[in-house]
């Protein structure tokens, strides 16, 4: 193949000259024979024909022969495939499954891991792995020479009141230069300007495009309007473009950080957030990392109180992409690996089909060799055919991928980073085309090499049955063994994940979720600053809620289990002095009304639960701790009667009055986060103390409503009830507690589900592979089987012969698969729960399953072998 683009012009000119010289010579000869010059010219030209076309055609000889060959090969390949519809159908379907699965998963990988972030010079953007408070951000902004740093809070919630129904919106507080560091502009209006994160200048808000459309009916004159967010009057200064989704696709609005050094509690303690930055010109990520380490002592020294020596030491700087994607990378790569294996199985299958067909095509190839085709030409023809096959498969696979992707996007947990960026874009199409060609070559090469090595005379002489097929048969047996081995690995992986999911769904989260409806009630934070107002509000709300039809009981809690968050309570435990320079114990504080434990069926193991009296101002300050917390602080002692205090209140000890069962507070897999030392409960009342140090009880509470049946229609009644008390309080996230638990399982379920599909496909393809090879071998050996039967072999012996052959292949595959699985499944141990990556039960069960499937796949051909009529078989040929 030659692409003579370079000589193009020169060649055209020369060709023109060559034809012209031809004409001149012809005309001169005619003149010499006595024609007039004019006559001679006309005649010569007529004889020559259309010079332009001749030049074109001649020129084409240089550039396009390879293309013509290719077209010819393609036409021939298409004809061959059409003539074998059964083979073509099976091969195309197999490849479509393999390529489709790969395309779908690659779209995910592309959207989440590969696509550059949609910001200016995304490779210069970085993020911190650690969270820092506002004060630390200010110190680092002043000192850093490698980065322009800005802070972005985690998703916060804001009540929008005063315009229609009150709603709860999700928003982020950001540094004033956040947008300029990312390099993005507002679609309407402007972004924040320098200094607008300072107190007094920060009464501004920027809307997301979606919020602007939904809540403000795409009002073109929105910029400049004022709205009330969380009781604070803010001016809308801009609307962002639709594709701006930072830090999360849920973000509906951005407000400036409120950087107020005089508010020490917030400035240094209650405003922890991740930082992002843009590397300054010439700086590298490595330099930024070093600088972060160097700045750390100065940052710690600036804190308003003494910080433990090891604070922030694990923090480092990574590319922003990495900071966003975090642990999704590993999971996606595991999925990509799995579909890669699936494609290998599909390739092995089609290669096998081609090998079996090679035998029947031997004669055809021999004829073409005899007609002068070179081996290279034959090889190219056969490869063209297999690439055409896989391209058709890829086209079909794209359809499967589109469908699969839409399912995956809904099945994957919505907090999967950058999920909104996932689409079948140009990169994915290029990947698929490339994959298809590679696949075609991969499964086509071995059969094609075998077929093109045909011995012409042998093939033409014999009846065209088995001359070069012995080598092919060995190759196809190897392929089947490999295929079974890979299937084994995939099915084991699927088995381990499904078993994890099964164990996970069987675990007791520590509370009941049936017949409980929950709803978030979120008055503005300032609503509770008036002493007693919030307590009275919730008291009345619970009373009215209990009176609703179908409601048996109702309670309130500051945050649901399974990761809804809770107050973090830096504490001191009696008789557990914190060594200087070490962390104080961090406790999660669940603030509850007395009925919460009973409604949630969280058992009181020792002591007592709360009563209404515990909420009163004159009552003694009391606490309940969870079982493992009690064991952590007071092993072997009675926790009841022990004391805990907030670490900033030297003399206010709170008495432990009870111990309750452990609850999965953090997520479905674990009770608490690694940096949390325990869980305690405090009564919602005068003594509810906040981790932030604020005196008021929390404003946002979640109602936990026990119903007589699963009643979702309670939503509107509840909204009316809240509105009748205070029409500025939004009610959100109303739903059965069961859904909340199911949501917590979404990620393990989606990954297990994907693997179960891959495992099922692997099993199916493996079975088809074994079936194909065994039935081909039976067809090849029908004469031998006939002889055996003529010599007195019984049918059972024939059955054993055939099934035994298949079993031997399957057994080797299973053995290799076990070895491979032991190596590969270790990579996914992070996804497993309650089961080892080497779980012998799973391996054993999958091995047996695979053997059964293999035997079933052998059974049909074996039955055909048993029915071989010795007379027919011997007469044949």
């Amino acid at each position: 193949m030659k692409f003579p683009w370079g000589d193009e012009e020169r060649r055209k000119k020369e060709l023109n000259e060559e034809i012209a010289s031809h004409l001149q010579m012809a005309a001169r000869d005619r003149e010499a024979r006595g024609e007039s010059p004019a006559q001679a010219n006309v005649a010569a030209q007529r004889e020559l024909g259309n010079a332009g076309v001749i030049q074109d055609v001649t020129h084409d000889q240089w550039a396009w022969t390879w293309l013509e060959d290719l077209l010819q090969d393609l036409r021939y390949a298409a004809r061959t495939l059409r003539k074998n519809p059964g083979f073509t159908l099976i091969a195309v379907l197999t490849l479509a499954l393999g390529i489709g699965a790969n395309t779908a998963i690659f779209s995910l990988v592309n959207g989440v891991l590969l696509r550059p972030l949609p910001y200016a010079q995304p490779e210069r953007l970085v993020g911190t792995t650690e969270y820092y408070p506002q004060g630390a951000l200010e110190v680092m902004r002043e000192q850093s020479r490698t980065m322009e740093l800005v802070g972005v809070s985690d998703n916060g919630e804001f009540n929008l009141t005063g315009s229609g129904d009150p709603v709860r919106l999700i928003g982020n507080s950001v540094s004033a230069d956040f947008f300029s560091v990312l390099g993005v502009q507002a679609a309407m209006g402007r972004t924040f300007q320098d200094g607008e994160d300072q107190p007094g200048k920060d009464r501004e808000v920027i809307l997301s495009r979606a919020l602007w459309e939904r809540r403000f009916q795409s009002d073109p004159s929105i910029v400049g309007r004022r709205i009330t967010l969380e009781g604070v009057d803010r001016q809308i200064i801009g609307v962002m473009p639709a594709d701006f989704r930072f830090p999360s696709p849920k973000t509906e609005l951005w407000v400036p950080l409120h950087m107020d050094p005089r508010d020490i509690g917030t400035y240094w303690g209650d405003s922890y957030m991740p930082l992002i930055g843009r590397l300054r010109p010439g700086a590298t990520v490595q330099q930024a990392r070093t600088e972060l380490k160097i700045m750390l002592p100065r940052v710690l020294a600036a804190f308003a109180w003494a910080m433990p020596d090891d604070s922030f030491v694990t923090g480092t700087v990574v590319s922003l992409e990495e900071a966003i994607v975090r642990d999704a990378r590993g999971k996606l790569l595991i999925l990509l690996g799995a579909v890669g294996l699936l494609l290998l199985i599909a390739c092995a299958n089609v290669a096998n089909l081609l090998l079996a067909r090679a035998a029947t095509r031997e004669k055809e190839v021999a004829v073409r060799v005899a007609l002068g085709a070179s081996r290279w030409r034959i090889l190219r023809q056969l490869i063209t055919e297999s690439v055409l096959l896989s391209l058709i498969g890829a086209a079909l696979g794209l359809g499967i991928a589109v469908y699969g992707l839409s399912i995956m996007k809904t099945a994957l947990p919505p907090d999967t980073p950058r999920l909104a960026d996932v689409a079948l874009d140009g990169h994915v199409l290029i990947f698929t085309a490339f994959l298809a060609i590679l696949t075609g070559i991969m499964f086509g090469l071995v059969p094609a090499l075998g077929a093109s090595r045909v011995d012409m005379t042998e093939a033409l002489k014999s009846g065209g049955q088995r001359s070069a097929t012995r080598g092919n048969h060995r190759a196809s047996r190897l392929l089947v063994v490999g295929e079974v081995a890979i299937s084994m690995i995939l099915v084991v992986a699927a088995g381990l994940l499904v078993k994890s999911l099964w164990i996970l769904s069987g675990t007791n989260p520590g509370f009941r979720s049936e017949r409980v409806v929950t709803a978030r009630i979120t008055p503005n934070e300032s609503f509770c600053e008036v002493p007693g107002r919030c307590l009275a509000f919730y008291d009345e709300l619970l009373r009215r809620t209990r009176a609703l039809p179908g409601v048996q009981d109702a309670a309130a809690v500051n945050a649901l289990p399974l990761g809804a968050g809770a107050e973090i309570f830096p504490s001191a435990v009696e008789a557990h002095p914190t060594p200087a320079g070490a962390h104080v114990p961090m406790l999660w504080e669940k603030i509850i009304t007395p009925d919460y434990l009973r409604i949630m069926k969280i058992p009181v193991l020792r002591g007592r639960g709360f009563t209404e009296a515990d909420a009163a101002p004159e009552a003694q300050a009391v606490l309940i701790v969870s079982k493992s917390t009690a064991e952590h602080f007071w092993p072997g002692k009675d926790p009841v009667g022990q004391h805990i205090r907030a670490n900033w209140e030297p003399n206010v000890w709170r008495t432990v009055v009870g111990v309750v069962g452990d609850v999965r507070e953090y997520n479905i897999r674990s009770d608490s986060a690694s940096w949390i030392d325990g869980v305690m409960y405090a009564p919602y009342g005068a003594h509810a103390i906040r981790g932030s140090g604020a005196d008021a009880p929390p404003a946002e509470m979640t109602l936990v409503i026990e119903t007589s049946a699963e009643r979702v229609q309670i939503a509107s009644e509840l909204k009316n009830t809240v509105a009748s008390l205070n029409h500025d309080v939004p009610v959100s996230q109303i739903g059965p507690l069961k859904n909340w638990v199911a949501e917590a399982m979404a990620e393990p379920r989606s990954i297990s589900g994907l693997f179960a599909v891959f495992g099922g496909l692997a099993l199916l393809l493996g079975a088809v592979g074994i079936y194909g090879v065994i039935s081909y071998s039976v067809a090849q050996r029908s004469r031998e089987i006939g002889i055996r039967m003529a010599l007195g072999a019984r049918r059972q012996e024939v059955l054993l012969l055939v099934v035994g052959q298949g079993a031997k292949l399957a057994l080797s595959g299973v053995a290799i698969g076990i070895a491979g699985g032991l190596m590969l499944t270790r990579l996914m141990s992070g996804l497993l729960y309650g089961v080892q990556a080497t779980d012998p039960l799973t391996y054993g069960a999958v091995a047996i399953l695979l053997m059964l499937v293999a035997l079933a796949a052998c059974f049909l051909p074996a039955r055909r072998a048993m029915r071989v009529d010795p007379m027919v078989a011997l007469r044949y040929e």
Partner: protein
Amino acid sequence: MKQRYQNRIELLQGTLDLLILQTLRWGAQHGYGIALAIRANSGDILQVDTGSLYPALHRLERQKLVAAEWKLSENNQRVRVYRLSVAGKKKLATERSRWAQISQAIAGILGPAGEESEA
């Protein structure tokens, strides 16, 4: 239009190549000269179409069976002259024997049939 020419090339392909290679065996020659030689040597029976000749020449050049260079003709005209390459000589030998086989085979088929129809 182009299509028609291409069809004609396909028709003659192989045979024309053989004739060109054979003609060049007597020495380097330009396209017009080759056409004249084939016509003369076939006793004016084979008229080589220019629209087939030049594509064939360039195809052979591309396959490195002939080599081409610009020279001045006896009339002091710049002409493109083709010369047989080593590969071209080999090809000529194999093509000749193949041609011999084919023509023999065709004669074998046509021979008796012709006699029958005359009988």
